[in-house]
């Protein structure tokens, strides 16, 4: 068993709050200004990709570490970094649906933004990480190892 990286669970939740805002804007714009909406979803995709590739250098993580964490009490519990990372991959998948699908059918941008918003909103404000819940289920089905 390898030792896993443990993280402050409030870090991903802070990131989710930012994603919540961006995806809600993307959703609103997708119904009024397609081009801006598309750029916003691309930005979301880049952020997801960044946190999958290198979570340590992700801007939201740096802001959290630099400005938010010092003002909070020390965490009562640390969290394994695997499920949040997996959740970011799920987020990236949805962003890609918007980015690639949006080229052919603009409605996919709206759908992608809506899903990203719901998942990020529930994570940020209710502590429910849909991607993390999926992690065990998908491992059980045998999709993940």
């Amino acid at each position, binding site marked *: *068993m390898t030792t*896993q990286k443990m993280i402050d*669970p409030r870090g991903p939740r802070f990131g989710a709050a930012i994603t919540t805002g961006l995806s*809600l804007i993307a*959703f*609103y714009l997708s*119904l*009024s200004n397609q081009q801006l909406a598309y750029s916003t979803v691309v930005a979301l995709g880049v952020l997801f990709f960044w946190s999958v590739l290198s979570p340590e250098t992700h801007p939201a993580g740096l802001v959290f570490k630099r400005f938010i964490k010092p003002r909070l009490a020390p965490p*009562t*519990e*640390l*969290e*394994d970094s*695997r*499920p949040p990372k997996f959740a970011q991959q799920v987020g990236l998948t949805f962003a890609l649906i918007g980015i690639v699908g949006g080229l052919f059918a603009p409605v996919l941008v709206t759908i992608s933004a*809506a899903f990203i*918003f*719901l998942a990020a*909103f*529930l994570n940020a*404000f*209710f502590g*429910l990480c849909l991607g*993390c*819940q999926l*992690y*065990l*289920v998908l*491992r*059980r089905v045998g999709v993940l190892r």
Partner: protein
Amino acid sequence: MDSTLWLTLSLLGLGLAAGLAYRFFHGRGHKVVGNECINLEKLAVSKNGDPVTTFGKTATLVQFSTQYCGQCPGVRRALAKLEYRNGDVLFIEADITDRLNLAAHFNITQTPTVLVLNSAGVIKYRVGGVPKAGTIESELTKLGVT
């Protein structure tokens, strides 16, 4: 009000409704019917280094955890405290990270999942997620734990 704003607000409302429903249902346990008895040999958990072979005198609490589960340690502490307060209660924890067959058998979709067993090891109550305050205690009282 234009439809764009209206749709955006609906999405926000949907998220809020889902979140409130989650808050309401999460950790709310339910009675288990069917009298399934836990097979300690198959569960094969150890406690303080020794394999667990007998149930608690009046009740047993089984917690299913995974290594990557963030809220499991907190629940473990809470349940261990209940065990400590009452010698007739046994608390055991099964790590299902690499034992997905166990997860499949008990149909565990989230960790922690807590089972409350009676003195004979029959599953009486089940909670998915972090149990709400007092649920486990009141189930133990029903089983005769004072």
